[in-house]
């Protein structure tokens, strides 16, 4: 029953999406209001239908309906309910259904929050959403159907991949997809504007909110994935430059560039053609990411089931959509080019450099990710480039971007007085260099140049952005501090918080990368070991039982200056069905450091291999990301734009 209804709803949605798309060709025949009402209602109906079929799939998982092949291969009776729920998007078919659900959600949001966008543009946007929906729905129905049956019906399922049985993985894919798929909104806007050949400032303010929203979700999604890797994979790392990670990071870089170029487009009316191109680029990279993950042409640590045929289908769609929008861009974009003079000390120019570097970085990562494909098709053999390439190229290209954050915030539109700018920022830069120098030499007794550079630039950004945020206190006569605080424009809070976040993140990354300690040793029960300032005592190992795994749990006590601090309980789990062994590291996180203990092999009766990491300031990485996201929320809710319009 579930199969039939699920399939029926998906087929109806596909038909309705086709109707949505066809509206774009009926301009001359049907009146605007009617077309608008038609599109709007269709987008709601499609959303409801896809939501219902998604719910049926969830229901099938919850009641253990193993007559569905997808449920049988990704769930199990003994799986906890929350993981039965998240198993829905644990593999290919369900992920794509989730993708479509979110796409239909975004498309239904367009008419709901269309603001001052004229109806004719909204109609075109929804129509183009219709063709995107149509493609993915057809894809689901013909090659990735989660409602396919299996016969004979197995008594029990094969269980969810144990790697995915983690709280972080419950919400990571949906949030990442919301951001990923959210890039479709700027894309359909770009195409609609190119078709219309006309744009207004108000529309750009509107678009900027959408871009910030998907930027926020993308940031949350990527960082949750990273957090999951840190806690679950047991390698102590948080970023591996894996093709799948790069697939989500490239759209993030592109959308970050878009975010900044839209500021210029909104305030100065230039870079509009460039912003349109970036919107297309961002969505193309999202589609490319989907293709890379789903086609299996690049081998990834993320073990997904792959299928070249599915890859070909996505590739054909990708080339049709991106190809036609680029041709449209080529033929129409000249109408959207506007000139206005600006000097090399202007905000426009600094943001132009920012965009240039972000775009180059995106392509450098794209090149690294596709490198094995390029060399193989040029018959140079398949060569992969690894983390060293990415780390080098990324930090080299990002340093100028970070350095320019402060000047970008402090400079004026059109032209800035160079002397006053350098006087203001020179002092801050000097202090940052001194603080970084003192900190490194006296605290870490180290003089690695790249660390020094990273920390000083991070401090430069943090200090200058903080001062900028509270600058309002300099010229106010208001005695009430609280009132003054509330009067800081939210757009300034947004960019200051986001930039401070980047600075904090850089400090976390550099310090934890260069000053970590790692010990991999054999410990006997009752023995102790000193790592940095903390003494770790290995107390015991106990057996533990759960519904779908058995586990051996180590008990470790930490002492600092002979005072008890905390106990660690790292586990080694054996999952009953897939017989996989998983390391569950135990982590104690403090502001100054993380201690990370993973239980290894039992060598003799009482001696075990134990891995201990001491990672200074790695928490700053997550705090930095948190600040960026908070900044993003302020950006979504900032009121400055409507003030400008009045």
């Amino acid at each position, binding site marked *: 029953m579930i199969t039939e209804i699920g399939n029926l709803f998906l087929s109806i949605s596909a038909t309705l999406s086709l109707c949505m798309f066809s509206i774009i060709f009926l301009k001359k025949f049907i009146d605007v209001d009617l077309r608008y009402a038609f599109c709007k209602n269709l987008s709601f109906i499609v959303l409801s239908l896809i939501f219902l079929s998604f719910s049926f799939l969830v229901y099938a998982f919850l009641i253990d309906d193993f007559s569905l092949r997808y449920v049988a291969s990704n769930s199990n009776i003994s799986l906890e309910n929350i993981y039965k729920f998240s198993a829905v998007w644990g593999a290919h078919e369900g992920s794509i259904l989730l993708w479509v659900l979110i796409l239909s959600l975004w498309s239904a949001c367009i008419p709901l929050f269309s603001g001052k966008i004229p109806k004719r543009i909204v109609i075109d946007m929804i129509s183009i959403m219709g063709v995107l929906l149509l493609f993915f729905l057809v894809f689901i129905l013909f090659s990735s159907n989660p409602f396919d049956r299996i016969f004979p019906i197995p008594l029990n399922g094969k269980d969810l991949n144990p790697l995915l049985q983690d709280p972080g993985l419950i919400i990571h894919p949906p949030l990442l997809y919301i951001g990923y798929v959210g890039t479709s909104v700027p894309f359909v806007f770009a195409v609609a504007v190119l078709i219309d050949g006309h744009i207004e400032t108000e529309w750009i303010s509107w678009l900027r909110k959408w871009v910030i929203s998907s930027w926020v979700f993308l940031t949350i999604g990527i960082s949750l994935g990273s957090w999951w890797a840190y806690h679950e994979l047991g390698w102590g790392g948080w970023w591996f430059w894996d093709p799948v990670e790069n697939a989500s990071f490239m759209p993030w870089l592109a959308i970050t560039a878009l975010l900044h170029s839209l500021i210029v487009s909104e305030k100065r009316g230039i870079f509009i053609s460039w912003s349109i191109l970036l919107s297309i680029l961002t969505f193309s990279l999202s589609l490319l990411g989907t*293709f890379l993950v789903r086609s299996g042409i690049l081998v990834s640590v993320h073990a997904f089931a792959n299928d070249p045929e599915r890859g070909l289908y996505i590739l054909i769609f990708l080339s049709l959509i991106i190809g036609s929008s680029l041709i449209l861009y080529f033929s129409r974009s000249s109408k959207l080019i506007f000139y206005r003079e600006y000097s090399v000390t202007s905000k426009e120019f600094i943001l132009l450099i920012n965009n240039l570097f972000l775009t180059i970085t995106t392509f450098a990562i794209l090149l690294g990710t596709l490198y094995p494909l390029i060399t193989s098709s040029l018959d140079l053999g398949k060569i992969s480039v690894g983390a060293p390439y990415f780390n080098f190229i990324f930090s080299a290209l990002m340093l100028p971007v970070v350095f320019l954050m402060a000047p970008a915030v402090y400079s004026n539109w059109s032209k800035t007085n160079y002397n006053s700018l350098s006087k203001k920022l020179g002092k801050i830069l000097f202090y940052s260099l001194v603080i970084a120098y003192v900190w490194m030499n006296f605290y870490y007794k180290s003089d690695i140049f790249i660390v020094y550079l990273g920390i000083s630039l991070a401090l430069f950004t943090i200090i200058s952005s903080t001062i900028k945020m509270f600058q309002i206190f300099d010229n106010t006569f208001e005695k009430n501090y609280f009132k003054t605080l509330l009067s800081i424009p939210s757009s300034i809070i947004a960019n200051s918080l986001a930039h401070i976040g980047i600075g904090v993140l850089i400090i976390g990354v550099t310090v934890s990368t260069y000053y970590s300690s790692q010990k*991999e040793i054999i410990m006997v029960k009752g023995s102790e070991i000193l790592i940095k300032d903390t003494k770790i005592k290995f107390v015991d190992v106990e057996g533990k039982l759960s519904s779908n795994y058995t586990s051996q749990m180590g008990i470790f006590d930490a002492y600092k200056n002979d005072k008890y601090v905390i106990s660690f309980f790292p586990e080694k789990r054996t999952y009953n069905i897939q017989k996989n062994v998983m390391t569950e590291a135990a982590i104690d996180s403090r502001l100054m450091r993380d201690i990370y203990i*993973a239980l290894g092999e039992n060598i003799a009766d009482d001696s075990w291999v134990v891995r201990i990491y001491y990672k200074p300031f790695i928490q700053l990485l997550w705090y930095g990301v948190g600040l960026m996201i908070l900044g993003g929320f302020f950006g979504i809710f900032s009121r400055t734009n409507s003030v400008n319009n009045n």
Partner: protein
Amino acid sequence: MRYKLAVIPIPVFLIILYFLYSGLNKDPTLIPSPLIGKSVPEFSSTTLIDNKIITNQNMLGKSYILNVWGSWCYGCSLEHNFLIDIYNTDTIEIYGLNYKDSRENAIEWLRSKGNPYKKIIFDSDGDIAIDFGVYGAPETFLINENGIIIHKHVGPIDNKYFNDVLLPKIKK
């Protein structure tokens, strides 16, 4: 002038598309390696189980198979039983390159599935694998007694592949 610039994205996109398409058509498991006929790259690492130093020098003298694997890798579990068969029949020695893995997971994996390897090079960050041009696990290299790479295969190997392709080359 500006108008003409707008054409640039189209050829860029077409070039990328070409590479994506060619990647799709080529079986990702049939990969010629530029290293064939050349010496094994120099490396120095530790062995997985007993944590002793191992370099490319240690492996000279006899022809052998180098198998790249990881406990996270599904394809590796597919070929594992066959590797055990080779080990039992004593046809050729197998060295392992443990790729992007954690020591404890790797050892536990071998404990539950059996260990066909003479020695295993531990390469947690994948640096040695990059020198070998490793593209993903599992990969199998055939290397002769002088340390020259004779053959490379990407993806799981099975009895048929071993008898049809590898065995004739070993006997040469």
